[in-house]
Structures are given as structure tokens and as C-alpha cells.
């Protein structure tokens, strides 16, 4: 039962991450490799505020979101000048920089030793410390994020994002300030990733930089691409699939030592098969060109 609840919490976290990533990838056409960096920034900001300065979870969360969004502006202005492949490289650089800072700024982050003893979250005096209560809490937050993003997708703002994704030049010629739309899209996506980070940190109660590497970014991107982009359903399907699939592999009696590698091989195959058979993803709407 605990195992199942743990899986559910993981799925909730990754649904938040994949959905917010979809705002950038599927709706704005910004393929990014830095989503785990924003996830990590949210986790570390929340943790430091709670552990070092004794902040309440809710305040720490709000400040972590604000801080991550502010940092996203910096990244946006540095990288959004680039288009296509160069933008992807710029986000890769950002991802690597964030990891390097988390890993090497030992005075603040304790570097590779990580930060243990993160308090469980509490809301309005109610402590969320059991697995069941956390999975419910995660469910509520995931629903809030999904609802918020659904509103964004339906809004005129979301519609213009799609136009920019399809043809930036034509959107400009219609008077859209493309840069402003992209910056806001990145800000929202990174803010949501920060929420997932805060939840992750307080769920596991220990964080270290290895949870926020480029591999994580790629995993999130795989979820979005395998599940499908351009709607709400796709990334959810992708998140559930890529979390549940390796767990199912356990029942195949593959030795633990190779399970991780096999998971990678399956990702690779899945992605390739996907691109051939269903380029729009399992449940997606928008097709990459």
C-alpha cells in the first residue's frame, strides 16, 4: 500500500512538471532542457528557507516560486534571443550551471552532502506527515496546477502562444510582442516547476543536487513527447507511463542491477518508435516538425 502511495506521489509531482513543461514545449514551441533546474531551484529555495531560516512551509513556497520566476526572467533574456537549436543549447547551459552551483556552493547548499531533515509541510496548522495525507495534498496541488494551466491554455494568451509556436514571424506581423509572450510562458512554467520542487523536498525530506540533473530534464521532456503535447491529457499520460513502466518492469524479474539500464533502453526505443508511429505522442494534439 505504501509503495502504491509513493508511486502516486511521484506521479503527482511529475504530472505537475510535465504539464508546466508542456506550456513551454507544446504551446510556445520552446524545447528546453532546463526544466529540472527550475524544479531544483524551487526545491532548494523552499528547503533553505525552512531549514536555515525557519520559515513556515506556505511562506517558503511562495517565496520559492517568486525567486524561481525572477530567475527565469534572467534566463529568458539571456536565451530567448536564440532560436531553435541555439535556444536548446542555451537552456542546456543553464541546466549545467544550476547544477554546478548547487553542487559547489557548499556553504549554502552543502553541495554533494545534500540537506537532510527538511520538515514535512504543514498548512494552517495541519501537518501533512503521513504518506496518505501527502498523496492527497499532492493530488490537490496537481489539480490546482492542472486547472490553472487549463485556464491559461484556453485563454487568449494561450492562443497567442500557439500562434507564436506555429509561426513567429507571422505572429509578429500581426502585432504580437513575441518576446513578452515567451518570457511570460517561461515564467509560468518555471513557477509551476518550483511548486513541484517544494513538494518534492518536503516529501523526501532530503535533497541533493543529483535529483536535479540534465537526466531529470530529459525524463520530463520524454514524458511530454511520449504522452503528446499541445493539450492537457498528453503530458499526464506521459508522466503516468514513464513512472509506472519501470515499476512494472520489476515484475519481470529483471535483476535490480540492470533495471535502471533497461529503463533507459526502453525510453530510447519508445521515443524512436513514437516518432515514427505517432509523432504527435500518445494523446497529443500538436506535432513537432
Amino acid at each position, binding site marked *: 500500500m505504501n509503495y502504491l502511495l509513493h508511486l502516486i506521489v511521484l506521479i503527482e509531482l511529475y504530472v505537475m512538471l510535465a504539464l508546466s513543461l508542456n506550456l513551454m514545449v507544446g504551446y510556445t514551441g520552446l524545447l528546453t532542457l532546463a526544466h529540472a533546474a527550475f524544479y531544483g531551484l524551487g526545491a532548494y529555495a523552499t528547503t533553505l528557507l525552512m531549514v536555515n531560516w525557519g520559515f513556515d512551509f506556505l511562506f517558503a513556497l511562495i517565496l520559492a516560486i517568486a525567486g524561481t520566476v525572477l530567475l527565469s526572467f534572467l534566463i529568458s533574456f539571456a536565451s530567448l534571443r536564440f532560436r531553435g537549436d541555439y535556444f536548446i543549447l542555451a537552456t542546456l547551459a543553464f541546466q549545467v550551471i544550476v547544477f554546478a552551483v548547487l553542487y559547489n556552493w557548499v556553504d549554502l547548499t552543502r553541495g554533494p552532502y545534500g540537506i537532510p531533515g527538511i520538515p514535512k509541510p504543514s498548512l494552517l496548522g495541519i501537518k501533512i506527515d503521513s504518506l496518505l495525507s501527502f498523496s492527497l495534498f499532492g493530488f490537490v496541488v496537481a489539480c490546482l496546477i492542472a486547472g490553472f494551466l487549463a*485556464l*491559461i491554455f484556453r*485563454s*487568449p*494568451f494561450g*492562443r*497567442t502562444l*500557439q*500562434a507564436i*509556436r*506555429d*509561426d513567429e*514571424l*507571422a*505572429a*509578429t*506581423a*500581426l*502585432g*504580437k*510582442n*513575441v518576446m513578452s*509572450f515567451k518570457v*511570460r510562458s517561461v515564467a*509560468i512554467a518555471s513557477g509551476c516547476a518550483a511548486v513541484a520542487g517544494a513538494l518534492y523536498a518536503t516529501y523526501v525530506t532530503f535533497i541533493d543536487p543529483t535529483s536535479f540533473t540534465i537526466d531529470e530534464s530529459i525524463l520530463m521532456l520524454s514524458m511530454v513527447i511520449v504522452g503528446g503535447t*499541445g493539450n492537457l491529457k498528453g503530458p499526464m499520460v506521459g508522466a503516468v507511463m514513464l513512472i509506472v513502466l519501470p515499476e512494472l518492469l520489476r515484475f519481470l524479474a529483471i535483476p535490480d542491477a540492470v533495471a535502471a539500464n533497461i529503463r533507459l533502453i526502453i525510453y530510447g526505443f519508445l521515443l524512436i518508435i513514437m516518432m515514427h508511429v505517432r509523432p504527435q505522442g500518445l494523446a497529443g*494534439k*500538436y*506535432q513537432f516538425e
Partner: protein
Amino acid sequence: MALLEIQHLAKSFDGVKAVDHVSFAIEPGTITSIIGPNGAGKTTLFNLVAGFLRRDAGTIHYKGKAIDDLSPSQRAGLGVGRLWQDIRVFRNMTARENLLVAQKHQPGEKISNYLLRYKNVDKLEKQNREAAERVIKFIRLDHKQNSLAQDLSYGQQKLLALGRLLMNEAELLLLDEPTAGVNPLMIDEILALIQMLVKEGKTVLMIEHNVPKAMSISDWVYVMDEGRIELYGSPAEVSSNPLLKEVYLGV
């Protein structure tokens, strides 16, 4: 007052003069065609007017105001609309969404407005949908309104791109080869549409390779070659001028 006034506009690429000190003015409510061989600098001229290229010299006035330092989106905001030669519809959006997104005044593009002043946004969205409905009927694509733009025929995509300009409340329409690659039946439909737009107060500046067709609907014709305007006048004047053949055939 001229709607668009261009003076001594120049642009070179690596020393090649694409637009070589061109001057002309466009009166409101007219159709002006620019014709000339490939590489004459016509599209470059359009890019300069729409703001996608920066000029080397000269000035562009729109409604009496210098727009040289404005970005393409700012120029679009003033009413300079552009139809691209390669159309550039939003491929993964439906025909209707293509029109809706083009609406100029959209407070719902600000998230705070959308979340906090939803009623106001919703009211404007309703108006936007009504406007889109009118435009889609006008361009005769109402039977295709829920099709993805990429599934429309080439000619239909051109119509949709024109409709997008209408939704955008563009006043000066820069049309880059509006009939190129379109089947003959649809050419007449598109040209009739352009004439209708001008009757409703729009001003058209278009690049057209189909010279007889261009002549048939234009008030003014400019013949461009090697970055310069070699000849201009009414369609009758230009077509009777022996220089026209020289520019086109090099004889």
C-alpha cells in the same frame, strides 16, 4: 495626405543594391501593384515597409508619421498588415483560431486580466468570435472553420491569411504575390476580394507576377528592376510603354 510615403529608401546586401533610393507615395483607398522580374527588390521593399529589415537610408512615413524606428509588431499595431508570399498561416490551429488570434485588441492576452477581470475579457471574446464569424463568411471559408489551417488548400490558406489581416484591422495591406500558386478559379476570387476590401476603405500595395491580372484591378502600377523604379503610371500608361517589355524581357 498620402497613407504611405517612401523617400529615398535604400538597402544593400553585401554591396548589392536590393532597393536603390526608391521614392513613392500611396494614396488611401487605392490598389497599387509593383511588378518586375525576380530579384528586382520587391520583397525587400515590403520587408523594409513592414519593419522586418532595417533601411540603410531614406525614410518611411505612415499616416504622416515616421515609422523607421518602429519594430514590426509596432508597425502592425498602426495598421500595416502583411501577407507573405509563403502565406504563413498558423498550421496547427483551426481556421477560426487563426482569425481569433489575429484580433488586435485582446486584454485577455494579459494573464492578470484573464484571471481577475474575466467578465470583461469574456465579453470581448464574444465580440471577437462574432467578428471572426463575419470575416470567415466574407472569405467564404465558413464550411472549413474547424479544419486545421494545414489541411486547407493553398488558395484557401491565402484567403485565410487575408482574413487574418482583416481581423487585425490592418489598413495598409502589403500583399506579396496574393495569387501565386493558386488555381485559376480562385485567382479571380482572391482578386475580387481584394477589390471589395478597397471599397471598404483598405489600401492595397501588392507584388504580383501575373501582370495582366495585376493591371486589371490596379489604380497604379510601378515597374521595379534592379532595386529602382523604372516606370510608373496607370495600368494603361504602363502597358503601352515599350520600357515594360525591356524590363521584363531584357530586350
